[in-house]
């Protein structure tokens, strides 16, 4: 990490020489760091000819365990989750608090990002069509992980003296382990996680987002922005700066309000494109299933496809990362487990619905014309798939990508900040330092190639999963007890359903 900060320092020292080679310089500086970090975190073990990164295994086993341990809450709790979001169980006598719907919408805005557009393309490029299948499986299992972490996020949140709340894995680890008589270990884990999230926020929730937003803008501009990543980066960084440091909240508020509609707009047009490719639909779906179990043409075969699918799914829906529990902790409810139920809808919306739709857009285009995107990957590939049928779509897609990226960056700046304040306290000075670092990385993200960005982002994300899931194993019995108590109260009618 010190080398990344050294790069950052160097970046400011050179004070932005305005020549086209500047992006190149940054790229050359960061690429070796990225691959070093990547190979360290992604320590791989060979499995049937595929390279299985240990952290991916860690996530899969975690998600599987929570799915079984919670009795397939991802299926059994689905209907109840929708009732909760609809407000069926909201106490009509205490309106005005954060509703289940609001908590879900905020968390979904944070997770629906470039990963849903560009990340899926990356998965399909590397893992073949079969990766889509495993992506969906990962989304399905991830619902259980989210259930566990968000329940804990609400149960163990902290109220600050000013009346605002702070929650998330660092808090549930510290307090949860303390309850189990492992206070020292809990403190260590909380700190470990807080460091992970505040550094990790610079990858998945920052550089990856700004990078892909720039790529899509450049695609639309027909390459006119080549080598101008630093400029786009600075502009983006300036807007983020205005919001998180300058306190111009209205920008963030407007974005939060537009993003859900952009997501619906995106899905509607994606479905239109899929329908326009209707002759390719059966073959595309066939490829997904065939690829999932044979892994034809994929390095590492079916296992290779599985690994890529899982990796990209986590990157998109954040299950196991613990970030959503920071967002969900804002809800005041006497039953923390209700927030768990609500949160299991996130991987469903994010991965099972939106990612699958994107995958089908790409998949059907591939069937119709295997070479439709040329060398393009990431968001540019998705854009090309849309362009085949709707020539003007890359433009709104660029706008949407920019907004998705922006809202995800705003959410993650908050997640990272919570990690930071957990470590260094709520002091204003420290918070500003963190926010400045965050803005600098927004700019850097636009100057570096996708490959190294993915390496660093992936590495950092999984760095957060390790402490989080380890903590979840220990604390899962608490969640299970809460869930059973809650179910009993529902059955006995102690928790009432209100007709609105």
């Amino acid at each position, binding site marked *: 990490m010190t080398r990344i900060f050294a790069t950052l320092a160097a970046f400011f020292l050179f004070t932005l020489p305005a020549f086209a080679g500047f992006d190149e310089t940054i790229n050359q500086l960061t690429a070796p760091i990225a691959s070093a970090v990547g190979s360290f975190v992604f320590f791989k073990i060979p499995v049937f000819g595929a390279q299985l990164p240990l952290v991916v295994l860690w996530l899969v086993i975690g998600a599987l365990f929570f799915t079984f341990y919670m009795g397939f809450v991802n299926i059994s709790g689905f209907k109840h989750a929708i009732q909760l979001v609809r407000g069926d169980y909201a106490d009509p006598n205490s309106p005005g608090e954060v509703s289940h719907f609001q908590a879900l919408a*905020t968390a979904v*805005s944070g997770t629906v990002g470039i990963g849903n557009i560009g990340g899926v393309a990356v998965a399909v490029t590397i893992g073949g069509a079969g990766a889509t299948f495993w992506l969906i499986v990962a989304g399905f299992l991830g619902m259980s992980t989210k259930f566990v972490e968000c329940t804990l996020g609400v149960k163990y949140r902290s109220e600050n003296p000013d009346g605002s709340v702070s929650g998330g894995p660092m808090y549930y680890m510290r307090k949860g382990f303390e309850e189990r008589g492992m206070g020292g270990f809990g403190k260590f884990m909380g700190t470990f996680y807080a460091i992970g999230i505040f550094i990790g926020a610079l990858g998945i929730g920052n550089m990856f987002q700004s990078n892909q937003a720039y790529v899509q803008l450049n695609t639309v501009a027909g390459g006119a922005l080549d080598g101008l990543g630093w400029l786009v980066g600075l502009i983006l960084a300036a807007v983020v700066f205005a919001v998180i440091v300058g306190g111009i*909240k209205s920008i963030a508020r407007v974005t939060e309000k537009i993003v859900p509609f952009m997501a619906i707009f995106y899905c509607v047009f994606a479905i239109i494109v899929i329908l326009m490719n209707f002759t390719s639909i059966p073959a595309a779906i066939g490829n997904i299933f065939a690829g999932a179990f044979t892994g034809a043409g994929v390095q590492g075969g079916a296992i290779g496809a599985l690994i890529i699918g899982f990796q990209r799914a986590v990157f998109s829906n954040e299950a196991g990362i613990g970030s959503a529990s920071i967002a969900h902790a804002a809800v005041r409810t006497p039953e923390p487990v209700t927030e768990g139920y609500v949160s299991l809808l996130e991987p469903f919306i994010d991965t099972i619905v939106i990612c699958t739709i994107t995958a089908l857009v790409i998949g059907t285009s591939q069937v119709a014309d295997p070479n439709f995107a040329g060398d393009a990957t990431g968001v540019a590939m998705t854009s090309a798939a849309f362009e085949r049928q709707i020539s003007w779509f890359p433009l709104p897609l660029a706008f949407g990508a920019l907004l998705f990226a922006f809202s995800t960056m705003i959410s993650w700046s908050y997640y990272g900040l919570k990690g930071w304040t957990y470590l260094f306290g709520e002091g204003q000075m420290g918070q500003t330092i963190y926010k400045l670092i965050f803005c600098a990385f927004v700019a850097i993200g636009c100057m570096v190639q996708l490959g190294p960005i993915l390496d660093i982002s992936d590495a950092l994300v999984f760095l957060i999963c390790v402490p989080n899931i380890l903590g979840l194993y220990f604390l899962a019995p608490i969640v299970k007890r809460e869930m059973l108590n809650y179910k009993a109260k529902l059955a006995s009618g102690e928790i009432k359903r209100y007709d609105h």
Partner: protein
Amino acid sequence: MSNSVLVAVDGSEGGERALRYASERAKLGGAKLVVTYVIEWSPYSFNTPEENAERHMRREQEIERATSGVVEPAAAILAKEGIEHETVVRHGQPAATLIELAEKHGVQQIVIGRRGQSGIKNLLFGSVAGNLVQTSPVPVVVVP
């Protein structure tokens, strides 16, 4: 059933007119007034994580502001004039919440001030009084 009237206030001039009208009628007819302040809020809005984290604190501030700034002064006037009354401060969608409260308190009438907003604003946001007149189970008096 006792004779009671719900009067909606919101710190605006329209709300004041509604209160004045209702208190004059209450004095003549001996009715009880339910002075209601609905703080506009929807459970289905989209917020930033920060807004959510501060929501509880903001809610209390909103209630405090409505109570001490509008509802309590109104209650003080009513008390001085010897009019029986109670006060309610609630979050919610204005028209629907007023109706809900009207039913809960079993009032015979709702009195609300006219806001007098322009046509385009009405078109975009609708009017509380307009919605109320359309959906209220009890007679509504809109005070101009």
